[in-house]
């Protein structure tokens, strides 16, 4: 049943609906594949095999009974460990939450369950989503399926690796400064950060409340759209959730497959997100894609976003400031691990301190200290206050750009996947990796990363970032699906069919043979 894991969610959904394949079979195929490959890749922190099979059996029973089900009912999904799940441990990649099982489901998880998707387990991530490589997880690294010595991106490296290695057709991620889009780019998968407020944050363990957004991870644009339709929409439990009605993202993606979908689309290329610091092969694939778009009738304009220059600096003040406050609740009093001090009295202050000392990793501590400092009296205006002003300027840059073009484009990340340890000693090098993705979070606009080929120098995936105005997520899906179709027809295959084999079966059996 290996072939079942190779299918897109949409293709699997058709087989499930026609009852050619049962949800139990689909789930078992994915669980078997996880068993085969994940000891090595380590995309999952927790696999809930029995629960997944039980859920799948319920879906099969409901389908047999003729219940009206969501198209994705019975499709397996992986969930980033930042999302609260009441039947699985939720650690956010941190030791401080080791073994914690929340008493509730995040809204997006509840919506997945209501739609009949089958949660397979929880995926690895940088601790509290702080990082671009998943190396900051307290539970070990996740390997990139394209090159096992390289990072899968971060913070959502687990979700991206799980999808790219066919352990799940879909996954949920969260994106504060690129944690969905950058892992998608370096693993050759698709990732979407919706408009801020488009998807509920209730039950998503907060990193930076004003930047965080939950979104879909998949292998095709259409699959991401199907998942977006399940998780999106207003949630009264999240006060920042938009009350707008949303068009179907799946319908928008289907529009992108129509002839001439790209004709007359005005595309802005951001001048500031190119050139120095961008790997040659990344720039090359990006430019080739633009040329292809022109040939498909799109209009390309260069636009300037002068304040993007300050985006990383502003981001690394706003994020740590909010994080320092959001992470204050991890104090051993109500949940999570408790560590007593080695010496001194057992006051709550000492226990809190010892717990946080032992429970938080170095990157988390670094950011808590940064944020505490940035919010301190006397520094607030210079740091947090100035950063908020930059944020306003970046929003204006976007507004000016979107007055001229329909979508903006840049490479999703300046480089392809780097090697483990390469940037660990230099936090600034790690932070600057997010230069392309951070502006969208600061402005609250939606962004998508889709694969556009392999960099010639290292044979690793390159991602294209597409950004649209706030609330115009549907436009991303139309344009994204059109480009994906254009590229695949020019290549004659999908991106991920190029990925190296991970198991002996895969090495010797073709897809056709497996069927």
């Amino acid at each position, binding site marked *: 049943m290996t072939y079942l894991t190779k299918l897109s969610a949409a293709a699997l959904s058709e087989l499930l609906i026609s009852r050619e394949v049962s949800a139990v079979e689909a789930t078992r195929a994915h669980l078997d594949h996880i068993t085969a490959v994940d000891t090595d890749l380590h995309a999952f922190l927790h696999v809930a095999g029995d629960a997944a099979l039980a859920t799948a059996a319920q879906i099969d029973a409901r389908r047999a009974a003729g219940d009206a089900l969501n198209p994705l009912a019975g499709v397996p999904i992986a969930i980033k460990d930042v999302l609260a799940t009441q039947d699985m441990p939720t650690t956010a990649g941190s030791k401080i939450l080791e073994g914690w099982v*929340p008493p509730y489901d*995040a809204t997006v998880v509840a919506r997945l369950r209501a739609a009949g998707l089958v949660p397979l387990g929880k995926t690895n991530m940088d601790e509290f989503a702080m990082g671009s490589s998943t190396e900051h997880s307290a539970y070990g690294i996740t390997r990139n399926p394209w090159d096992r010595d390289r990072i899968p991106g971060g913070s959502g490296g687990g979700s991206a690796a799980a999808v790219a290695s066919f352990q799940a057709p879909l996954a949920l991620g969260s994106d504060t400064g690129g944690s969905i889009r950058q892992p998608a780019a370096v693993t050759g998968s698709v990732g979407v950060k919706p408009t801020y407020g488009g998807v509920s944050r209730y039950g998503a363990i*907060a990193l*930076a409340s004003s930047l965080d957004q939950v979104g879909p991870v998949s292998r095709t644009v259409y699959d991401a759209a199907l998942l977006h339709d399940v998780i999106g929409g207003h949630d009264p439990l999240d*006060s920042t959730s938009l009350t707008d009605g949303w068009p179907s993202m799946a319908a928008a993606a289907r529009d992108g497959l129509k002839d001439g979908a790209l004709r007359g689309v005005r595309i802005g290329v951001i001048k500031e997100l190119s050139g120095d610091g961008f790997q040659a092969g990344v720039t090359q694939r990006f430019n080739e894609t633009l040329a292809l778009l022109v040939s498909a009738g799109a209009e390309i304009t260069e636009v300037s976003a002068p304040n993007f220059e300050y985006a990383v600096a502003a981001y690394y003040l706003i994020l740590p*400031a909010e994080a320092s406050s959001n992470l204050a*609740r991890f104090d051993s*009093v109500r949940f999570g691990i408790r560590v007593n001090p080695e010496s001194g009295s057992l006051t709550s202050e000492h226990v*809190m301190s010892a717990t946080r000392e032992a429970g938080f990793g170095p990157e988390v501590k670094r950011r808590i200290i940064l944020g505490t400092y940035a919010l301190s*009296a006397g520094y607030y205006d210079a740091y947090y206050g100035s950063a908020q002003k930059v944020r306003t300027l970046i929003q204006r840059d976007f507004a000016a750009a979107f007055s001229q073009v329909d979508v903006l484009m840049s490479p999703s990340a300046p480089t392809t996947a780097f090697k483990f340890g390469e940037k660990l000693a230099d936090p600034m090098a790690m932070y600057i990796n997010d230069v392309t993705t951070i502006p969208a979070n600061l402005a609250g606009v939606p962004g998508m990363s889709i694969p556009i080929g392999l960099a010639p120098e290292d044979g690793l995936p390159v991602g294209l970032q597409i950004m649209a105005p706030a609330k115009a997520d549907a436009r991303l899906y139309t344009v994204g699906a059109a480009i994906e179709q254009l590229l695949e027809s020019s290549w004659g295959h999908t991106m991920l069919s190029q990925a190296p084999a991970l198991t002996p079966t895969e090495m010797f059996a073709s897809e056709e043979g497996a069927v």
Partner: protein
Amino acid sequence: MANSELMDFDKALELFEPVLGFEVHVELNTKTKMFCGCANEFGSGANTNTCPTCLGLPGGLPQVNKKALESSIRLGLALGCEIAEHSRFARKNYFYPDTAKNFQTSQYDDPICHDGSITIELESGRLVTVEIERAHMEDDAGKLTHMGGATGRIQGADYSLVDYNRGGVPLVEIVTQMIEGAEHDAPEIGKTYVAAIREIAKALGVSNARMEEGNVRCDANVSLRPRGSNVLGTRTETKNVNSLRSVERAVRYEIQRQAAVLHAGGTITQETRHWHEDTGITSAGRPKSDADDYRYFPEPDLLPMAPSREWVEELRLTLPEPPAARRKRLQAAWGFVNLEFQDVVNSDLLDAVEATVAAGASAQSARKWWTGEIARLANVAGVAADSLVTPAQLAALIALVEAGTLTDRLARQVLEGVIAGEGTPAEVVERRGLAVVSDDGALIAAIDAALLGQPDVLAKIRDGKVQAAGAVIGAVMKAMRGQADAARVRELVLERAATIE
């Protein structure tokens, strides 16, 4: 310097000018908490009214309680405040185990209400206007119980329990401007100001306003300025003074204590102080400097609020008459002397008397019954007077007395019947057969019999010794088993004595 060293109050006032400031926390009586759907309820089992949001669990998010916002605006309007066109929440960051998120969701730069004032009247008749700087919304902390120690305080305790039921309960914190010129009235100003806030909150119905349950809590700031100086002294903040009398005592104590310290050449430490109800002293808490750094920043999980002007004006129309003005109006309308009126106010029976008068009773009768017999019965039963009978029932009872159907003595029996649930006053009269006998025929027969049975008394009455009639009246009342109007009996006795053969 020991706490026991105090300067005489008058001497302290000779040397120093007290400067005051108050922060009063009013707990709102909304059905649910400030930022989640949990019940805002006193007395539930520990940690039962909790959810991921008010427990500060990872992933929990706040939602603003609209009723709490409404109550805060109404409270602000009643305090003469401006209602901000744009207001937002801010996080006040500090670690303490009773604060689940380890930050309080409060307001900083943009409080919902600002720049108000109320005028209070002291017993001397002096009017003092207290300027309100701001009234802002925030969530309450949970409750810590320190176990194992002798004092119930954290010092010496073996461990502490925390109950988050109160965590997230909506509060409005009302902050005054500096109050100067209080002089000898400083302690009374403290008491009267807090009483006024409590009364306003109660009249609005936004809080249960019971100080003994912590619905209204006062932090009192006191500093002393040497006479002739224009430099403010260092202030102390005495926390959680939870009765009106304690506010008065704590302010007085701090003035006397600080004066003694300063006069002896010492300095006042800027600090919080604890009030000890039993010993009547304050003791040092934690140092508090203006540079206390709570790292306030706008709460990113909540959107800024912009209460529409139309809504604010609608809410303004719902404000009750200001309590002080209402008291003035009622006292004048009822014609009560100060002592009578204070009796009603202090017994918390203003509403009851007003409603009884509205139901047709005379003000004096209503006052007499509520503060007299009903208050006595309530005291015996250990309940509130206005829980025993309704104003309408009492008004009906008073009407029966005034119509002569009942004597006061009979009316007390009827009242007991009403309280016992035997029905309306008229029904109780009917069932117990308690009506005054007003049939003069039966009375005259009884009077004649009594007069003829005591000829010496009859003679005395005829001689003009009217007081002798008492003996006959007593005999008649006895014969009628008390069911006669004594005044009517007296009238008839005198009449019959003159004419009887």
